[in-house]
């Protein structure tokens, strides 16, 4: 008995304690505590993303905003690119025929082909700022097939593909016929066409030469121009196919556009209009990394570039075609379209600016609009190409960078906070 009573007391105590009554935890956090995210920490949640919902439900009609952005901004941008992609394919085809025939029209048609590329590229730069849905899936596969900058574009790789395309087989291997669909993104898309159509250095760019490439520099200029043009023509066809694929996944009853618009209803993968809106707002962060840091910061030497970390004119986007400024302008204007909702229908301009007004964020809206105006003005104030300006008028390019930064600073902080939107994973560790 004497043994039993201390034993049972022990048993009761242990049972009580094991039942978990002995635990508590409490915390207070700073206003910008983000679960250790703030310093390049993880944004990845431990469980699947459950999008942030505003703490006080908003009265703003987010579904209407999503609907306007989808119908009047995002869809028209994709449709427009599709048209320019088709036009490019036609123009390059015509140029190839003339170049092959060594016709007197070839120079003129070459210019028209280049113009068609410029139009397609400018149009694509709108889409770059609108990366939502099918463009992102499968590691941005469809986007990469159309445009792989800055990862893609090593000229040697494109030169190799020009030769393989010309030979019809990969590196002389009869069992491995050339098929553009199987080629990696860094060797095709708009970046490959740019090299094929615009580069006036007709020699290849490889330091080590394989059997297939060996005869290249010995060919006539005309032969090389034809080979480049025919390659460009195949690539242009591939771009048309990929654009069609994006559109087919975007449009239609079960397309991504419909999923966004019907957010919160059965059949949509988005549980609320807010979640859908968040998907669109994430696209705006292209301005932070790609536009500000890669397109401007790297050539300015703010980050490591091919010149070390000095000013590096050759690192601008689209340097062969000198189309960098146009690309940037398209990006800024695309951002503005999403922000203001001013797209293809002048009667409906519901945008994030209106949402900010509704959430007591008119001051944020104004600062962002001013930033956009100033960034565009600074860009247009640059004389000549961006490449020249980086070298000879660095201050003018720095000015564009600073004005863009004014916008992105707002975007990352007050914009997402006011609207209870999420910071995309990729921008958690950006370079500010």
């Amino acid at each position, binding site marked *: 008995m*004497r*043994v039993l009573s*201390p*034993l049972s007391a*022990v*048993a009761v*105590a*242990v049972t009580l*304690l*094991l039942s*978990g009554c*002995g*635990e*508590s*935890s*409490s*915390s*207070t*956090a*700073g*206003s*910008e*505590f983000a*679960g*250790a995210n*703030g*310093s*390049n*920490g*993880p944004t*990845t949640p*431990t*469980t*699947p*993303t459950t999008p942030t919902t505003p703490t006080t439900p908003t009265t703003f009609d987010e579904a209407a905003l999503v609907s306007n952005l989808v119908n009047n901004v995002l869809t028209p941008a994709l449709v427009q690119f599709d048209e320019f992609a088709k036009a490019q394919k036609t123009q390059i085809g015509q140029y190839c025929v003339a170049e092959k025939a060594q016709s007197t029209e070839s120079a003129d048609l070459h210019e028209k082909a280049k113009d068609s590329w410029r139009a397609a590229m400018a149009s694509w730069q709108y889409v770059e700022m609108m990366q939502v849905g099918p463009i992102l*899936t*499968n*590691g941005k596969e469809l986007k990469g097939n159309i445009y792989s900058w800055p*990862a893609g*574009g*090593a*000229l*040697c*790789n*494109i030169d190799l593909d020009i030769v393989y395309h010309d030979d019809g087989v990969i590196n002389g291997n009869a069992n491995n016929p050339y098929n553009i669909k199987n080629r*990696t993104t*860094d060797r095709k898309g708009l970046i490959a066409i740019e*090299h094929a159509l615009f580069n006036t250095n007709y020699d290849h*760019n490889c330091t080590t030469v394989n059997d297939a490439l060996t005869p290249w520099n010995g060919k006539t200029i005309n032969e090389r121009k034809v080979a480049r043009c025919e390659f460009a023509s195949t690539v242009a066809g591939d771009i048309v196919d990929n654009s069609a694929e994006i559109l087919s996944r975007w449009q239609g009853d079960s397309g991504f556009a419909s999923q966004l618009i019907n957010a919160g209803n059965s059949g949509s*993968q*988005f549980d609320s209009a807010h979640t859908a809106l968040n*998907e669109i707002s994430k696209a705006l962060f292209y301005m932070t990394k790609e536009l500000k840091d890669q397109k401007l910061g790297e050539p300015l030497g703010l*980050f*490591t570039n*091919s010149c*070390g*970390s000095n000013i590096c004119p050759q*690192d601008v986007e689209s340097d062969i075609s000198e189309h960098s400024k146009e690309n940037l302008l398209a990006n800024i204007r695309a951002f503005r379209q999403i922000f203001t909702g001013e797209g293809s229908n002048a009667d409906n301009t519901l945008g994030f600016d209106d949402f900010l007004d509704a959430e007591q964020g008119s001051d944020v809206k104004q600062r962002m609009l001013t930033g956009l105006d100033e960034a565009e003005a600074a860009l247009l104030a640059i004389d000549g190409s961006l490449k020249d300006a980086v070298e000879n008028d660095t201050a003018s390019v720095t000015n564009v960078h600073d004005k863009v930064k004014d916008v992105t600073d707002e975007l990352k902080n007050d914009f997402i906070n006011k609207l209870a939107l999420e910071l995309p994973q990729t921008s958690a*560790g950006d*370079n500010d």
Partner: protein
Amino acid sequence: MTKYTRMNKSLLAMAVAVALPNAYAEEAAKDDIEHIQIISHYDKLRTEAGSATLLTEEQLGEYEYDDIHRVLSSVPGVNIREEDGYGLRPNIGFRGVTPERSKKITIMEDGVLIGPAPYSAPAAYYFPQTTRMTAVEVFKGPAAIKHGPQTIAGALNLVTRSVPEFTEGAIDIAAGGDGYTKAHGYFGSVVNNVGFLFEAVNVQADGFKELDGGGDTGFDKNDFLAKFNYRLQQGDFEHNFGLKLSYADEVSDETYLGLTEADFAENPYRRYAATAPAEMDTEHQQVMFTHSMSSDNLSLTTRLYRNDYERAWLKLNSIEGKSPQEILLNPEAEDNLRLFEILKGEQDSIVPGAANFLTMGTNDREYYSQGLQIDGDFTFKLFDFAHELSFGVRLHEDEIERKHFEESYEMKSGVSTLVENSKRFTTLNTEHTEALSVYVEDKVKFDALTLGVGVRGELMDMHYQNNNNANDWLDKTTRIWLPGLSGFYQLSEDAGLLFGIHRGFSPASPAQSSEIEIEKSTNYEFGGRFNDGVTEFEVVSFFNDYSNLKESCGQSNCGDSTQQDAEFNGGAAHVYGLEAQFSQRYPLNLQLDIPYSLVYTYTKGEFKNDRRTTFAQWGEVRNGDPLPYLPEHQVSFNIGLSAEKWRTSLAVKYIGAMPEAAGRSWTEGTQEFTLYLEGQEVPSSTTVDLSASYDFDNYGQVYLKVDNLLDEDKIVSRRPYGARPGKPRQLTVGYKYQF
């Protein structure tokens, strides 16, 4: 005849000591005056509940291991993930907890926490030099509640050399393959009641890996220890005052980058050119004051300690934003081919139209850890029952400051060089913890039954500050009580049954919001022991029931720098298994003995829920999925042959295959998660180590050892990035002289 008998008796003691952890070792019995060792040497049949294993100086000296992984291979219930082959940064787990950087076990040196910041950042980037230890103790089960904060798996205590009672000293020098050298010496004495000890160790190697373009892949480690003590008798109490000063540094050419499967098959010891600049540079210092007093029924030890640690590890983080893991798993993909060739130094970073730099990150961190710790034991009788009360209180503070940065390196003609002015800071933050912990355990003896009931309390005030953003901070207070109950029922003088149940937990780091669940488990064990002085046998089964299994990301286990320090919930999980050890000696004749032992561990760990995670070792897990890096079967067999002047020992260790990842990749809407090593396994491996020594009486002892006799060269892990080998066969010859 008399002579033979006496010799055989000492041989027996030595043979058993060598063959068996926990052994009854008459010769090893030495008064632990510094109270730095926890398990007593004396016990014949140990009567404490809970698994506690002691590796003595004799056992440690047998193979002269510098690698704690090899030392622990004869301890049941230990799971290890090898990384660099030398054990420079050990990955040790007990009973199925993740072995990653030994962060889920409590690591102590001389009874105090030795990890760089055990609460704020438990990953043990500092690990004491094993070669200078005189004992290694492993506690699992309820025995762990005296040694927090990590109480799920258990605790590891490394015991340094005590100040000798008489003049004593030794030197130990060794040289081996791949430029391996060891120089180790100590000297201690007592002058006017003041004892002192000085010890120094240098271990270095050129490394066994072959760097593309040439260069070292080894390490150079120094350790210095000074100890002073003063003893005095006052009434019934004997007092001992101690001061310990230690310093350690390490420079090692270590990297996280491994090899592709194809390159590993061709030469497992190759290292790519991109790893040439990699370097780990560390420095550790410790100051500790100890006071202990003891009388017949009370002993009290007070320790005041301070550890400072700094480390900066320069290694490859990524190339063009791609994780090296992604490239090595699919090197032939045309998107990866150029990047892979840059890693190997076969292509330059800059070619017309492209510039692809290597992003090398330096994770520069500064830590401190300090505290005051009082431990006591009190024996008394109450209601005719013998009580043994253990209690302790510790006020501890630790901090980690991260000053991580990245730099670009340009690969040119096979040589990777720093791009000037490319430094950019990445993670800048501080995590800090102040913790008060207490424990009390009463062991009461009711005839044959010894029952222990105890509880541990932890009260932690934690603070996180992003040093880049004053508004990004978190203050958190966590309190937890962890009860434990253990028992030992003595069946006879030689045999008994043990059981235990305790609550375990691992603290969440200061940066994790208090809403994130902490890791908790209820752990059960049951087993039996037999020891008649010749044969020892112990079988313990265990079951750890996790209400929430947690993991955190370091670069070493995730390989994704954007997820660094994130914590992940794995939900309910079960880990159960069986630990068995058996040892005996076989007297061949009066001069020769064959001591042998067999240690077997069965462990099964599985998730008990379905969930999608973005943790690089889990992905989407489903009920029944296995825990990564946990082999089901592990066997180690030791056999020796010993005579008066010489002995040989052979250790065979089998580790079963273990999964590199638990679950699978998943897609949800536009969110995708690729589990890179899905379905891959670390193959099973068998390593054999051999050692032999010959005693020249007054002229010292020569020893020879061969680690990895069969030159096993299977993959030991595919993390952090790519396939990695263990240490190849290494022959070492050494000489020891003791006076």
